[in-house]
């Protein structure tokens, strides 16, 4: 088992009242799964994804990742954990405008303290794998949305994570670009990468092996 959420509650205090963002979430994810999280706006999809990605905390419950307890960890150890095992893909790509494609890909490796020569090889591999060798010296603003998201996916994968978390990865793309990205995800999943995506579209959800529906912070 890759990870497990047990009775997760998350709330914020607003006007003296608790507003629940997540209510009693129980979820087990096996390695190699491709899960889609669906639900209307405000149902807590992104919050759940952020909790899974350890970017956000929770108020009650337990989170086990690779048999370890996440809820007891300090921030530094959490950072270490997700740096090692998790990659993120965002709706609006979030590439750094001041860096080239090559440098954007290189950044996570720098933070993992990987040596220069090895870094070079890994970035070259990745560029090769995603067919963007020709674009390596371009800046994000010189790429189309689809190409930017391709770089985003490549960046998420470059450090060989076990888990990819994608927050509406095709939200800003047209249908043809969407299909390309989803097919890429499917292919990666077949290669053994676990993927959890948040999506609005039934069509995209269909690429996954399992769908979780959320409504008002509750799994239904």
């Amino acid at each position, binding site marked *: 088992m890759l990870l497990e959420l047990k009775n997760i509650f998350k709330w914020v205090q607003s006007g003296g009242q608790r507003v629940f963002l997540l209510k009693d979430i129980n979820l087990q994810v096996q390695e190699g799964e491709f899960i889609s999280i669906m639900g209307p706006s405000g149902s807590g999809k992104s919050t759940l994804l952020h909790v899974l990605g350890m*970017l*956000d905390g929770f108020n009650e419950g337990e989170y086990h990742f690779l048999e370890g307890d996440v809820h007891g960890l300090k921030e530094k150890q959490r*950072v270490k954990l997700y740096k090692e095992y998790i990659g*993120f893909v*965002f709706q609006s790509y979030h590439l750094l405008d001041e860096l080239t494609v090559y440098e954007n890909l290189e*950044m996570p490796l*720098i933070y993992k303290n990987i040596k220069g020569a090895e870094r070079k090889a890994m970035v070259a591999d990745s560029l090769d794998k995603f067919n963007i060798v020709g674009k390596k010296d371009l800046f994000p603003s010189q790429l189309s949305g689809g190409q930017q998201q391709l770089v985003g996916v490549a*960046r998420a994968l470059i450090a060989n994570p076990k888990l990819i978390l994608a927050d509406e990865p095709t939200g800003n793309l047209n249908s043809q670009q969407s299909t390309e990205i989803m097919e890429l995800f499917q292919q990666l999943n077949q290669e053994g990468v676990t993927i959890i995506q948040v999506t609005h579209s039934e069509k995209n959800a269909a690429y996954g092996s399992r769908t979780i529906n959320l409504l008002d912070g509750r799994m239904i």
Partner: protein
Amino acid sequence: MFKNYLKIASRNLIKKKGYSFLNIGGLTIGMACSILILLWVRNESSYDAFHENADEKFRLTAQANADFKAAVSPVGMVLGLGEEMPEIKESLLLSKPFDALMEVQGTKFKENAVFYASDNFLQFFNYPLLEGDPNTALVAPNGIVITESTAEKYFDKNNAMGQYITIDNGDSFMVTGILKSLPSNSHLQFKAVLPMAYIANRDQDLIDKVWNSFDFYGYFQFEKEAVQSPEAFARTIEKINTIYAKRQPDFEIKFDLQAIKDIHLHSSNLQIDVPGHGNSLYVNLFLIVAFVILIVACINYMNLATAKSSKRAKEVGLRKVVGAGRHQLILQFLGESLIISFLSLALATILVYLLLPSFNDLTQKVLSPQFNDPFIVVSMLAMAIVTGILSGSYPALFLSGFKPVRALKGKLIFSKYNQFFRNGLVISQFAISVLLLIGTMVIYDQVNYIRDKNLGFDKSNLIYIPMEGEMFDKQEALKSALTQNKLTSDFSIISDIPANLVTGDFNVSWEGKDPNLQVLFPSIRSDERFLEVFQMQLLSGSNFSKTSFENHDYLVNETTVKTMGLTPEQAIGKNLRFRGNSGTILGVVKDFNFKPLQHAMEPLIIQHHKGGRYAVVKIAPNTIKPTIAALEEIYGRLNPAYPLTYNFMDAHLDAQYKGEQQMGAVFNVFALLAIFISCLGLYGLSAYMAEQRFKEIGIRKVLGASSLKLLHMLSKDYLKLILAAFVLALPIAWYIMDLWLQEFAYHIEIQWWMFASAGFILLVVALSTVSFQSMKASMANPIKSLRTE
């Protein structure tokens, strides 16, 4: 990793040109100012440190009472102290500086600043010799040691040694030594030095080895043990005072030792001193100014960096998501500010090279960019590092603390704390500006006050001519020649110019004088036209008559009468013994200033005398040229060996405050620069603030707000900050400026309008800086701002 930071930083710099310009520009100007001040301070505090064993060498100073402390000592004491104090290794006697007419084969120049010095002068002080033997150069009574530039003026460069120079149309002196150009950081500046042996048989003080007449400078080198610890030093001074008290029980003088390294900066309270000293107050003041300017520049950086932090939030969030730890981000942002500060340092260094000539003009110094001085280099590097870390620390801590998810979503809510902090920074900048503005105004006002102060006499249209050479013996002929010419007939012959009087006697007594009273009485000798030519006011009694000289009649000033405990009316006809001559007080003159305005009014005795050392001529309006021509004619006829030297009284008086005027000018420049840097930052800040409120402005406009209303809304916030800064700056400004004004016995009072106008100027400058951005934002088409959402 560092390479990556460098890349991001440099690309950020290039991409945001305006922002970079404001930041680097501000820091560069700030650093350049600081480096200039640093060079100046370094020079000011390096005086006389080049002499060997400078820590063991001291100058003897004498204090007569609380108000009168002088740099001079009696000859006998300087020469005799060594015999009674074995801890004195070396004693040096130096005369007061004087002007000398030097002549070599018809070439005549009046050289100011010539000294007589005892024969160990060149061993005691380490002025390097180009030629000659330091041990013997000043032994023979007819030797002369001249400086390189003096040698070049009179001789071919290489054969000055052994040549003769005639001085004051009298004796000839053989050049026995040529000094390398004097270090500019020497408190003694001179053109030539003559052997003390030459006047050993002529000067009465030297012949009698007196202990009660203070006319020479005395320097001593002590054994290390005698001056090293504060206790030993105090004991040594005590010993000197005991010796003197034994020798002169009737005189109550307190002697002190002044380290030669302290002479330049710590002599402002000493009278009868060599000219050209600095003031430690200004050194401290300028150090503070340098520091303040750097702080202002740092604040700019912090403000701009935090203001645009929303723009960098995404980068921070993203870096965190891909695994950056907080410390890595802190390092990155600190690295960025360090890059900017070192870039600014490089630019500032270039700027210093370019500005140094003008700065030298302003400060009358010959500073060179001493980038080989380790102290300067280390200070500069430290400045860049501290500036970089100081200005980068807040943005670094602030930005690196962002929560990644929120930062990425752009849902950052800037805390009240951040707003508070930024306002605090702006307030301190404004406060510093108000402070400097008030400083500028007070200094300007004080310098003007000194220049225009009614001295008690009319200093305008007065020309004075020193008596030289044969003129001393031809004073009667001079008087009749001056009287005969209508242009020059309004004249007076006096012994001393009432500008910086260096005379003073304790030997004054009157009936009923308190025997413990020890007051120094400066004196002037003059003819009967002194009061008229200088347009001084007689309070009671009458002016000198033709027979006043024989009768020992005295004129005294108001302060003398007060010292005697009388009113001006009571004093008339009272008996006064002055220098052993008993006479009567003929008249009381209204107090006039005969010393620089740093000093309080002292008593003064005016003696009648037929001859004098200066002829002072009052020129009728618009006749300056013909009068000078007439003087030249008279002078050339009576004293052909000397060229006429004349001076204007008012110019001479103004020159006494050159130090203050220079200081004021330098302060002005730095104050303006500091305000300019603040404005740079404010301009950038207001741009970002307007940008942040772009959408709000759009909505308000759609809802019907006029541009004027919006302008008001946007400027209102700054108004509050200015007010807060103003309130903060007032007491500090008052305290500091009052401290400076206390240096002057005569000074202006700090007025409320100085504060008011400083506040007003700042208000206008700040609001016009801000309103440009506000105007742009409030005039923009609202559709534009709303569409971007």
